[in-house]
């Protein structure tokens, strides 16, 4: 036994030393923090609806993140066709900052529409309910100024939307709280810290929340963000009634530090679950995609495949028990999360009907597995440039870069063509690895949950996007369309054979799924579209709603006969690592 107390010398660092190294900030966050131009409320604020009353008597909904729990994003509404899509115009829009000055820049919310009410969230966790036909604000909820100030600096303050169930609207906040609101009034029913049930899930420990929850059979299901921040990723289920845990234990996506493949690691394992699960109501099996291991680009201290990172995992939705897990990238050194939500399809595969689960990774590869067994159906079909040598301390350029491949943007599935549409990003990255584990952390810091390295954009590399139509029957690309900007929002398709998607310059487009031709494009006044639309009907009229980000976040509803006045092209705002997943 020894008693040791080694004193660390206290070195005075003059502030001139500490701050003489001050340099010009890259200022990439400027678009997040600069005040927006003063909006004119009279132009953008519709007449308030009477609370509890909405326009219309019959409603067909877009009731959850992925339209259905399978996340197919394919709606049966057929009023809008290839022939009349040119008559689409804006029915209404709302400038969210005009409604509340504390709305943050940027928006990645996927609207949910239930019984004539559009529910959206904003960056910084405000929730709005609008009359879907008139745009009349029904209610609005915002966190207290103190709470909002508390999380305004966390890694990503985007929010991907709500779940609706049991007369309540559910959202996760940046600072790791589950919020339930009264669906009719927007009044807070309950706000519960996740750390009450999963110890240590706090901003101080690097956890935050961006994902939309999903409601299913009395429970809401949540993932966790912060994998690049060195957290231990998990999925958990909560009772919608009182927000208490519904599983005996969370499903952890990586081992505890010090166990299994982290036995000799100085780091936590990562494995965030960025986006909502897909749930098969017939079998009660739930599928979710797991992010990259930590540290991102240095793998010496985490030997082996690093399960379940970069994987799709199937669990029993009522218990959280593992059914199967399939990994897309073993021993990831390139930040190749399985980020987007998986999708469950009843598709024709190799000439036969089969229920499969599909997911496109940031690796630029697309996968399909048998939904029941996890048996591989299509194994990593490339849809992007793939060239990723092992990162070195000197730096290597890799494709895809850290934005993917396919990032958080969801795919859609059209049963008629049997195509899955994949939103792709073509952009390399220069990766530099740490020389050793000590550099990736700090000497004598066996537990540091560091992120270790920085990323730089690849030189002379112009980013663009792609739409890949994957023929599920053959596992071959039916076509690939190049888009000006990376595909960040994802798709929503209709039974009329159209797929709607937005672009980073604020355009909303319709693609003819069979031919791959863009047959309608509309320049909105929004700066940038970074989420897919929701499509719904009220009194049998079809509407398309979506959010836009940038410095003037807005929500739009389009329909046949709407206003065709177009806006000016926005600027792609996508290079910031803080916006990346």
């Amino acid at each position: 036994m020894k008693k040791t107390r080694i004193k660390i010398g206290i070195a005075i660092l003059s502030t001139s030393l500490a701050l003489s190294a001050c340099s010009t900030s890259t200022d990439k966050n400027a678009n997040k923090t600069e005040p927006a131009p003063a909006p004119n409320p009279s132009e953008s604020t519709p007449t308030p609806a009477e609370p509890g009353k909405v326009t219309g008597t019959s409603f067909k909904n877009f009731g959850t993140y992925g339209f259905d729990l399978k996340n197919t994003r394919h709606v049966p509404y057929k009023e809008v066709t290839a022939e009349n899509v040119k008559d689409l115009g804006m029915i209404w829009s709302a400038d969210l900052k005009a409604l509340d000055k504390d709305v943050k820049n940027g928006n990645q919310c996927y609207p949910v529409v239930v019984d004539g009410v559009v529910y959206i969230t904003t960056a910084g966790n405000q929730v709005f309910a609008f009359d879907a036909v008139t745009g009349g604000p029904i209610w609005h909820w915002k966190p207290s100024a103190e709470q909002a100030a508390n999380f305004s600096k966390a890694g990503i303050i985007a929010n991907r939307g709500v779940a609706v169930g049991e007369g309540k609207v559910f959202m996760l906040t940046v600072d790791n709280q589950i919020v339930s609101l009264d669906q009719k009034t927007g009044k807070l029913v309950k706000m519960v810290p996740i750390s009450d049930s999963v110890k240590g899930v706090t901003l101080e420990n690097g956890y935050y929340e961006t994902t939309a929850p999903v409601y299913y059979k009395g429970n809401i299901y949540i993932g966790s963000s912060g994998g690049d921040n060195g957290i231990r990723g998990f999925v958990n289920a909560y009772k919608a009634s009182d927000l208490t845990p519904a599983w005996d234990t969370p499903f952890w996506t990586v081992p505890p530090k010090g166990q299994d493949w982290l036995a000799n690691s100085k780091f936590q394992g990562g494995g965030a679950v960025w986006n909502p699960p897909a749930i098969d109501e017939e079998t009660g099996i739930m599928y979710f995609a797991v992010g990259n291991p930590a540290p991102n680009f240095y793998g010496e201290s985490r030997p082996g495949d690093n399960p379940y990172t970069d994987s799709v995992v199937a669990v029993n939705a009522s218990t959280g028990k593992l059914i199967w897990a399939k990994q897309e990238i073993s021993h990831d050194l390139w930040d190749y999360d399985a980020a987007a939500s998986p999708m469950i399809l009843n598709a024709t595969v190799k000439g036969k009907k089969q229920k499969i689960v599909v997911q496109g990774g940031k690796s630029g590869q697309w996968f399909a597995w048998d939904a029941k067994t996890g048996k591989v159906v299509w194994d990593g079909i490339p849809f992007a440039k793939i060239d990723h040598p092992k990162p070195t301390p000197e730096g290597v350029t890799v494709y895809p870069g850290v934005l993917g491949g396919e990032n958080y943007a969801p795919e859609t599935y059209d049963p008629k063509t049997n195509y899955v549409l994949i939103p792709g990003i073509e952009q390399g990255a220069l990766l530099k690895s740490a020389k050793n584990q000590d550099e990736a952390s700090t000497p004598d810091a066996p537990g540091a949950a560091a992120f270790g390295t920085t990323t730089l954009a690849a030189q002379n590399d112009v980013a663009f996007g792609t739409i890949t139509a994957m023929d599920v029957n053959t596992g071959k690309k039916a076509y690939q369309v190049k888009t000006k900007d990376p595909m960040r929002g994802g798709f929503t398709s209709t039974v009329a054979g159209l797929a709607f998607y937005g672009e980073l310059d604020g355009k909303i487009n319709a693609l003819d799924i069979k031919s791959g031709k863009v047959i309608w494009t509309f320049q909105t006044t929004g700066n940038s579209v970074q989420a897919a639309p929701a499509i719904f009907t009220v009194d049998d009229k079809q509407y398309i709603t979506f959010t836009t980000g940038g410095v003037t976040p807005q929500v739009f509803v389009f329909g046949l006969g709407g206003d065709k006045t177009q806006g000016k092209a926005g600027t792609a705002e996508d290079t910031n690592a803080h916006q990346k997943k």
Partner: protein
Amino acid sequence: MKFFYNAPILLLLAAYLAGCTVKPPQSASATSPLLPSGTKHIVRLDIDQPHVPLKQWKADGSHIASVKGKLLLDNQPVVNGILHITNSSNQVVTGRDGSFRLNIDQSLLSDIKVNVASLDQATVSGKHLTEVMSKELQAASAAVSVYYPIRVIRVEDFPADASKVQVHGQIIPAKGDVVSYFQVDKYRMGGVIKDADGKPVEHAVVWFDRDLGEGFGKSTPTDREGRYSIYYWPEDEETNLSVTLGTKRYTLPKGKVFKMPENTSVEIDITLPRTGTVLVDAPPALVSVTSAGAMYTGVLVGLNVPKDVPYSVSIPDKHGSFILTVSKKVWEQEPAFFETTASKFVEGRLYGGDTLPPNYIEAVEEDPKNIKPFM
């Protein structure tokens, strides 16, 4: 400190309950309750495996153990009883034979308690329960503990004090398992936030973040002395430093970043400006010095004795070996051990085998704390 006993729990109720009102069972006549009042009901809430050795996380999910139990009243199964499990609202319902199952994460130290939550739909021998029976059943509890077994290798007199003994013990992980014992985990960014008059500012939060990469650090809110802490993993990096106070956010001058020193804790004292929200980036408004200490995290063992019973214990070394020093009198009472994953800021440096100050750690509610060592 509470002592927790594991199943089976036997509740022998005395005759004083005999005077309670007896609710007539719905399916029996009002005059013939299920069991005559005045007798002692025997309640058993049994867990088949109340002590579960910690088993490391496995990719095949085998670290999730299914633990069985049974709820009996006078040796008859209680059917449709609803049990409450610590930290979960998942209802566990007893089956026709009174049995139930719960899933336990065997890879984490834990003490999971099981209580009877509701007996509204419960029956025994096909009959509903009397109020007395329900009360007796609802008083029952049991627990499942997950921990590393502890072995006592030898006990010897403490040379410096004849009233004490030194217990040489060892944590026994499963073969091939690695245990993350108490060791340096993070460094601390700490300091004091003052207002322009030099008075400490309470409830301020300090943030670090980087333009490249998603990592960030968030401090505890400043206390009455204006002190904050961030347990962080510094690199040689340029960070955005800001302070939030209520809804106000103070930032460095435009274009300036804070250069974080590497491999050390650091004190950063900040004086907020009288007007505006731009921090003055020069002394005395902003002073940065490296400082000693680090946050330690990992598995420690302790003795489950009341707070006022002194003892000291060493940090387990890489073999899990530790030395406990305690009075002979206490040791002869065969106290149980607890295990905990502790996180503490330590001013100096500590290594496996170093002795911690007396009564340095306490078990928290979910820690296993009824660990009986084997010899």
